[in-house]
């Protein structure tokens, strides 16, 4: 039988602070943070990410953030597009509903990590997933936590995913 198709899986990494975190973090936090990372998974020529509006998708680099600051190659997958849509729908109804968004505990990077593991078995780089704990371990982060917690991040330019047969 024919060999299965392999689809490349990439991780797009954006710095939401546009370089400000790199400059100001030593002063404000006491430790060096290279950026405030927002990530998305790009597979099947589409970009998928999780925000306060739930799981969304757009053409790669199609959010208002523009092109990514860096691209990480996660691997390749045999998962087809339909199957992936099914998977995302089930995630969108369980772990990644729109109201389940929390900037520290269940954010875009949590989603990306889950999806990357599903697609390739690999996790995303730890400097991204460790970011919330890095911030919260500083007194500044702890002090600002009540203000930061309700923040909802939703990059614009995408649209929410629907069920594969066109009904939402």
């Amino acid at each position: 039988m024919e060999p299965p198709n392999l689809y490349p899986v990439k991780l797009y990494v954006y710095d939401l602070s546009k370089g400000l975190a790199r400059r100001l973090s030593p002063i404000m936090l006491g430790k060096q943070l290279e950026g405030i990372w927002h990530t998305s998974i790009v597979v099947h020529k589409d970009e998928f990410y999780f925000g306060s509006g739930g799981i969304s998708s757009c053409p790669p680099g199609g959010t208002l953030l523009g092109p990514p600051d860096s691209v990480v190659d996660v691997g390749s997958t045999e998962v087809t597009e339909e199957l992936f849509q099914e998977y995302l729908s089930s995630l969108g109804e369980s772990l990644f509903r729109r109201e389940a968004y929390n900037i520290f505990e269940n954010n875009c990077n949590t989603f990306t990590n889950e999806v990357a593991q599903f697609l390739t078995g690999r996790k995303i780089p730890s400097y991204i997933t460790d970011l919330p704990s890095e911030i919260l371990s500083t007194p500044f982060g702890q002090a600002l936590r009540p203000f930061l917690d309700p923040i909802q991040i939703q990059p614009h330019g995408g649209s929410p995913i629907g069920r594969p047969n066109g009904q939402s």
Partner: protein
Amino acid sequence: MAEDEEGLTWTELSGHSSGMPADKNISSSVTRVIVKTAGKQEDFMIADDTSVRQFKEKLSTHFKCQMDQLVLVFMGRLLKDHDTLSQRGILDGHTIHLVIKSKRSSRSLAHSSRNLSTKEPCHQVRNTEGNTNGVYQPAGVSHTPLESALLVEPDAPKVHSQDLEVSGPEYIAQMLQNPSIQQLLSNTDLVRQFISEHPDMQQLMQQSPEVSYILDNSDILWQTLELARNLAMIQEIMQIQQPEQILEHPLNPQSHLGLETLPGGDNALGQSYVDCNDQMLNSSQDLFGGNPFPALLEGQVLQQLQSSPPSPPPPQERQDQLPQLPTTRVIYTSSHGLSSITSASVTPNKVNHTPSTHTTTISTKGPSPTCPIQQPARVPALPSIELTQQPQTEDIDATISLDSSDQKLEDDLQPSDEQTKSQITGSMMQLLLNNPYLAAQMMLFISMPQLSEQYRQQLPTFLQQTQLSDMLIALANPKASQAILQIEQGLQLLATEAPVLLPWVAPYLWGLGWLPAPSCSHPDTVPWAWDVPDIAEPKGPECCHKSGTGLQSLQSLAGDPSHLLQAPEIRFSQQMESLQAMGFGNHHANLQALIATEGDTSAAIRKLKRSHGF
């Protein structure tokens, strides 16, 4: 024997697991695999040489679904039925991902794949074909592929990720340039059918029947399409409409303001009615004795408004506040004293009132003018509908204002030259200073809920209090920020090594404004914070442990203003004199001892004696 054991359910296996390894020779050892599905995960104990098929049987009973609904994924590879788990390298503790397909989707996917071959230009649209083909058959046009391509546009918001490739603005632009599509668009019957058959439009028409009147007028439709094609016109109208909001809203109407239920977006349609009114008025000049446009002056408008009897007072008052297109107002005021607020402005409340007043006043006119007037009169209803959606777009607007400044700052950061970078960050800091509100939003890409107001108000005061402004300006110099980092690191080291020395660093920080300078400054003699050492001892180590920042610990030490005031020499002058009298000649050492003992002379003496080695 081996097959029997493999055929056991997982519960039985787990019960037998302890007894098994002793009997078996090579393969059938039990492994524990984690099966992860849709946000939850469970452990399963299975034999090593279980085939995928058998595993699926187990899972189907456990998850209560059919076997063909199950798809297993391991390390990104789909597991085929004939493989065994050990063949795929699944060992103890590994995670297998499970997707349970819904029954509906497995059927519809088969259907959609058949349509796929016929739709070359828009191969991504396959899942919407089922809907659109059925809907548009009454149109009776045989350009099926083009139709479907065109219909992607109105379907764009409903459609999921696969269709986004086609629904992006550049694709719509491309499609519009296609001459056959333009030909289609010029056929007003077809377009009208397109629009009226669309379910969203039907909903719109139910909400407000006036919309259907609009659609019946082919002139208006044609103008709409002309307008939709001419971006410059849209921009101009938007500028006229919302001059004060220009900075907030991007001028590109095809961008993210889209609630794309109507072709070209709500705004385009809304603006088009403004234009349509003008066009219509031009075409019906003879009825009104000339183009009233020359009489656009607002004063005249208001005068005419006041002189018009049937118009109720409330619309007038609100009209005074309108910042928008005077032309549309004039249309109605010149037409025998009708008051109108027909421009598609962003004021939802009053617009709803006008249609009723219009119909009553119109009915007093002769029959022939009523027809053309009716339609414009009903125009305001449509903007009201689109405006009810405005609250939802507010979030988008807020983020758009963010985005435009986002873009600006992003552009600012583009050049990679170090010097220009510092200049740019300097200007960026200025921007932040001038708009602390912006600063709050710029740190993280935010669309904040109710807390935002509170936070924004607090941020300016926060910025002022911490004298962040000076600091930000200083940071414009990259060397300075590097230096500060070094200081920070040094302080941290000092804090861990010898916290008692922290107050001695204070003079160096006077210049940065972190700690207020004392009233009398003797930077060369001794640090000012005299009684702080004693306080520092119990407080310092705690501070240092809790706060990761050396500067912060210093600031906390300095937070208590009472210690700042008097220079040590003044405070301990009496004790100094007594020490001198006793024969302790070393002025400097005396002072230090007094600091350490908080002015206790006898303790200071003991200290001095110890240090002199008595």
